[in-house]
């Protein structure tokens, strides 16, 4: 067993623990902080089902962003939809036999890789070119884009430039999941690609990637409009309520 294999195996275990544990911690935190008042952005749906669909439309179609700015929307959709297909394509490294629909999506996955990188460059370009977006960008905003671009490009290089032993890569990941470690090929591009993915997983619960769970907990989006019908008393406000004379 090479040192590289051990290092990457340990790194992936730790990264998974941090990613999953961190997300569970954050989601519990978001879920337990009370929402003392009804603040949906109006007009809002009147029913829980309506609010559910509002959130679904935000998640899948980026509805509010579409209203806001067509360029950010196009680049955002290119990146996110591309990433989604790429992630699905990568499922083949973790399942055996590979599901039918994952097989079907394989050829699209490559184009999706290009779409993802193109979207990222679009978003990055705005950060540099548009004075307003330049003003609000921190170094971490550029670094996050750089990280994602590097992951995307290293992936594309493995597909088009170098030849990666994908059978061995799959064996490595299947081995990780079965706690039966298999050697990881030591091609530099692969190691860079996987190393950056580990970094992304670790950063997830501590960074703006929290916009993903955040969206589901955003009161302006997930609340429905029934304030006149139903009281909405937070636990911390209840004592104040109980102290009234009348």
């Amino acid at each position, binding site marked *: 067993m090479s040192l590289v294999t051990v290092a990457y195996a340990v790194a992936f275990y730790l990264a998974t623990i941090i990613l999953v544990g961190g997300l569970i911690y954050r989601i519990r935190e978001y879920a337990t902080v009370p929402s003392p008042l009804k603040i949906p*952005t109006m007009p809002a749906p009147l029913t829980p089902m309506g609010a559910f669909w509002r959130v679904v439309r935000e998640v899948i179609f980026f509805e*509010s962003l579409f209203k806001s700015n067509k360029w950010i929307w196009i680049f955002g959709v290119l990146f996110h939809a591309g990433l989604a297909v790429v992630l699905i394509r990568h499922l083949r490294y973790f399942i055996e036999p590979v599901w039918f629909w994952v097989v079907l999506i394989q050829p699209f996955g490559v184009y999706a890789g290009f779409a993802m990188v193109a979207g990222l460059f679009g978003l990055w370009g705005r950060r540099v070119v548009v*004075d307003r977006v330049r003003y609000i960008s921190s170094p971490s905003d550029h670094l996050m884009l750089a990280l994602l671009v590097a992951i995307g490009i290293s992936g594309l290089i493995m597909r088009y430039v170098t030849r990666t032993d994908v059978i061995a890569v799959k064996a490595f990941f299947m081995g990780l999941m079965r706690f039966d470690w298999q050697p990881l090929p030591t091609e530099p591009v692969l190691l860079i690609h996987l190393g950056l993915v580990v970094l992304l997983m670790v950063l997830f619960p501590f960074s703006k990637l929290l916009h993903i769970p955040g969206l589901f907990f955003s009161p302006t989006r997930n609340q429905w409009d029934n304030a006149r019908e139903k009281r909405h008393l937070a636990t911390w406000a209840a004592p104040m309520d109980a102290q009234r004379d009348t």
Partner: protein
Amino acid sequence: MAKEEFQVPEVREHLEIPPVVEGAMAHSQPFVAAADHQSLLGYPEELVDGWEDKAVEKMGEMARKYRSFRVFLDACVKCGACTDKCHYYLGTGDPKNMPVARQDLLRQVYRRYYTLGGKLFPGLVGAKDMSKEIFDDWYRYYHQCSQCRRCSVFCPYGIDTAEISMAAREIMDSVGLGQKYCNEIIGKVHKIGNNLGLPLPALEDTMEGLEEDVEEDTGVAVKYPVNVEGAEVLLVTPSADFFAEPHVDGLIGYGKVFHQAGVSWTVSSHASEAANFALFTGSYEHMFKISNRIREAALELGVKRIVFGECGHAWRVAYSFLNTLAGPWDFLDPRYPVPQHIMEFTYDLIQRGGINLDPEANDDKVVTVHDSCNVARASRMGTRPGDQFAYPRAVIKASVNRFVEMDPNTTMEATFCCGGGGGLLTDDLMELRVKGALPRMEALKEVVERDGVTHMAAMCAICKSQFTKVLPYYGMGMDMVVSVHQLVSEAIQLGTKD
């Protein structure tokens, strides 16, 4: 600040996004609350020792009490979607008036003390230690936000800068830095019952005067009652309605509507104010206290319904929060929603044929409507989402023959704040108010020139006061602003339903 020390923005044909001009509004800040304004509300009289730590601690407390605050601090990806949505940015070009940058004033400190990235790599993630410089920026720029929620419509995560600016003001209050305008007013409501400090005799005088005026005008004895026990409706209306123009014409209209409907009503001197400025300062506790004055008044007078007059943020607190803050309303007539908006009352009456309106009475006018931010994006009327747009239009169209819409990018859910909301309607912020009104002024000027619009109807006391003040800066007449119920008041045919 002297009146002409600043340049009124140029009105262009189309809304243009200004280039970033750093520090363009760094000189703008409201007067600080005096010691007695602060102590009356239970806040420290001046900036306390060790305020840095206390403010940071309070910030953590807010993040444990408000999910909105907690989630919004994490979720922003700095995509830039909101950067051109705030009227104060559009009117000033100051980058700290971009919603995301306004949030970042607080987020940078939050990150430093409450996130791993900010603790380990502050420079990388834009995290900063709490400092006087940052705190001064908070005071300046959280008082350049009218909490109108326009940014929240366009944010892909629904981040509402109003929530951040309310929390920031609450944090500042808690360490002894309050805004004079809001805190003085909240104190007056606690002591006297309304923002203006108008005592019962003055209130009675005003209402009697209205009765005389209306009778002289129309020959009909319309009542404007105060503290009448057993009245059907308790009217809660912004106190500006009692004396300011064009507000009072709206109040006259409500009285005429109640008169023709044959519904007895009263205002209460105990709760003679619809406004609830504690919304602006982010204080749940004071918002709760002010709201419960209405409950007390309703119980004391034994009314069956509560109806609110035209006021934007008041209607937000009424529609969205009153049930939570001051309910349950099981002692009121269950056939009506609590509270109701006067627009809903009049709309229902129109639908039932219970009111005779002759729109020809307003034929001297071409009218457009300004959707108030808090009515549009923070509350509702009627039974369906969007009735907060449909009802005022229906009421106006029943009262007026010539009605024109402004640019749809500036109305309904995308409406622009008048520029004076959120506790900024004070003379010490005049420059900000004038510049913040730019997007609305441009949209108005367009319909004035294209369609010959003569009047803009508003349904909010703050909008009415703000427009009255800023219209002349843009070369338009202050009397262009009318109350929606002023149009009803002109059109109503008194004596035909009695």
